[in-house]
């Protein structure tokens, strides 16, 4: 029996159509929920931000196999960069006037600015940090994350003018993160991570995780790829930060404490380090669950940490292991199963079809 293989354009079309359907469903859901719609919109936006944070951390944590503990620092840098940029534009006036279309270019620039600034920080931190491994990398990134927070808190006194507004907070940021905006950028981020990993660069990153010495022996420039993955991850965290700033409207350095980095890490670990689907699912569940079960919120962090320990003890590979979902492959499997069912008499045929 010849196995059905979907061609690349078909796969892309299927995924695009499904994405549009998902968007339509979410929009319909929010707009038909009446008064509660606003509340659901908020949860959905937070889910989107957390998906970007978790999947971007997964690049370094799951795919590269390192454990950075300063992801919140990159989110913070992106948030402040995007917020300060947006405040300098007429976006607020335009939004107040209801002219959402005119804000789009500013949003795109703000997201790019955040990504670039966070990427630069990622490079500055990654180059020294990635010379170390394991616990040392964890502690050095933790240190950098804390330094970023201390700097954001105190930089104004050094500069002599108001820049981040320190602990009192950067307020009146234009609230540009709508459901559409978050949806588009979440999809873009997921797509970028996917295509990065499915390339020679992604393979190189994975090979470093699996065996760094062997990767060097086949000519992989490990320093370059470690830094590239780290910077890529930081850039996406910056995007998440920017969208967060545009949702919440005011920023405080204390939001981006070590605790925030751990929260993101929990999402990645529970989902399964190295599985994008796992990160997405656990970002959704861990954001929605405490919201839907309000009385649970006191116990949230206790449950998180308990879940982390139990997961390591009983299922160290996380919910999904390193399994990564592919719509195309799933459809292929379904088609092949149906056809396999029809031609069951044909069992003599065992030869595997080579994929080309």
């Amino acid at each position, binding site marked *: 029996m010849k196995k059905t293989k979907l061609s690349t354009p078909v796969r892309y079309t299927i995924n695009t159509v499904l994405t549009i359907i998902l968007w339509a469903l979410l929009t319909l859901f929010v707009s038909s929920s009446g008064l509660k719609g606003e509340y659901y919109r908020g949860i959905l936006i937070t889910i989107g931000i957390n998906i970007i944070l978790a999947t971007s951390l997964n690049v370094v944590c799951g795919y590269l*196999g390192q*454990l950075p*503990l300063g992801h919140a620092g990159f989110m913070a840098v992106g948030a402040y960069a995007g917020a300060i940029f947006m405040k300098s534009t007429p976006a607020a006036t335009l939004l107040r006037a209801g002219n959402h279309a005119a804000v789009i270019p500013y949003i795109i620039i703000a997201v790019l600015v955040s990504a670039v600034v966070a990427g630069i920080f990622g490079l500055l931190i990654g180059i*020294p940090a990635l*010379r*170390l491994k*394991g*616990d*040392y990398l*964890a*502690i*050095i990134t*933790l*240190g*950098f994350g*804390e*330094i970023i927070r*201390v*700097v954001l*808190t*105190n930089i104004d*006194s050094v500069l002599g003018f108001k820049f981040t507004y320190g602990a009192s907070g950067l307020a009146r940021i234009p609230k540009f993160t709508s459901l559409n905006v978050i949806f588009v950028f979440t999809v873009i981020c997921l797509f970028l991570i996917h295509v990065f990993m499915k390339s020679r660069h992604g393979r190189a990153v994975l090979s470093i995780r699996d065996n760094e*010495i062997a990767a060097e022996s086949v000519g992989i420039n490990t320093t370059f790829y470690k830094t590239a993955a780290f910077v890529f991850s930081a850039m996406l965290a910056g995007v998440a930060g920017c969208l967060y700033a545009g949702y919440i409207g005011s920023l405080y350095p204390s939001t981006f404490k*070590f605790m925030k980095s*751990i929260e993101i*890490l929990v999402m990645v*670990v529970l989902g399964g*380090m190295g599985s994008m689907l796992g990160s997405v699912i656990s970002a959704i569940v861990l954001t929605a669950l405490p919201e839907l079960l309000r009385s649970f919120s*006191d*116990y949230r*962090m*206790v449950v*998180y*940490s*308990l879940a*982390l*320990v139990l997961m*390591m*003890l009983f299922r*160290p590979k996380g919910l999904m292991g390193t399994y990564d979902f592919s719509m195309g492959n799933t459809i292929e499997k379904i088609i092949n199963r149906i056809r396999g069912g029809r031609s069951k008499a044909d069992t003599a045929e065992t030869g595997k079809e080579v994929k080309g």
Partner: protein
Amino acid sequence: MTFSLLIAQLINGLQTGSVYALVALGYSMVYGIIKLLNFAHGDIIMVGAYMVYYAIASFALPPVVAIILAIGVSTLLGVTVEKVAYTPLRSAPRLSLLITAIGVSFLLENGAQLVFGADQKSMDPLITGSVMFGRVNVSYTAIVTIVVSLIIMVLLWFVVNKTKAGKAMRAVSEDMGAAQLMGISLNRTISMTFAIGSALAGIGSVLYLAAYTQASPTMGSMLGIKAFVAAVLGGIGSIPGAMIGGFTIGVLEALVAAAGFSMWKDAAVFLVLIIVLLFKPTGFLGKKMQEKV
């Protein structure tokens, strides 16, 4: 800044530094033996501090009893954590073990928030009074803290280098497999390392409380991280290293604060850590390790 003020700040630094050093010893010993950055170590101090607080403020027990209680509970907690969370993962990848340690740390912190409440608990100072050395005013707390930690470090050095148990600990940290073949009980030795480390954390918690007179669920987190920095700075796995590292961090913080940058204290500590890790990753007194190909 006058000279006497500088001396006063230095003594302050040495006082905080000795607490860091005691805690750093726990990190260093555990890391030396199972190569684990025990994130939960700092939170054991927090639990110890609450024990002292409740024993004295709520049950009006004599301080000596409170101190023994704090050390006892810390030790028990440390060993329990090791048995429940770390032992099953002894052959797991290091990353899993590290994540578990982070999980335990947050479990203790958030558990404490539920049990003890999120607010700070303040109590009367354990030791009062001070003495003048020339024109420098030194509190008894500072003297007791520094002296106690110096005595403990000498004791610890003696235990590790001169006793049979210490020899077992050194053997296990050198080569776990070989030590086992020589008839050393791995479980017992590792538990003992955790017990000693946690007992030191218990003493640290008392000294911390003597200096700052307050306990909060998150107090262990930053204290723990800084103590770890101290351990790395001194060279992880080395007892005198932990001591030197602790004092260095304590004095550094005091000097940065004295120069009028107290808001930048944490950043300065981490900056020093980063510089040290980059130029001498093994710290002042550490040994070099390389993966076998």
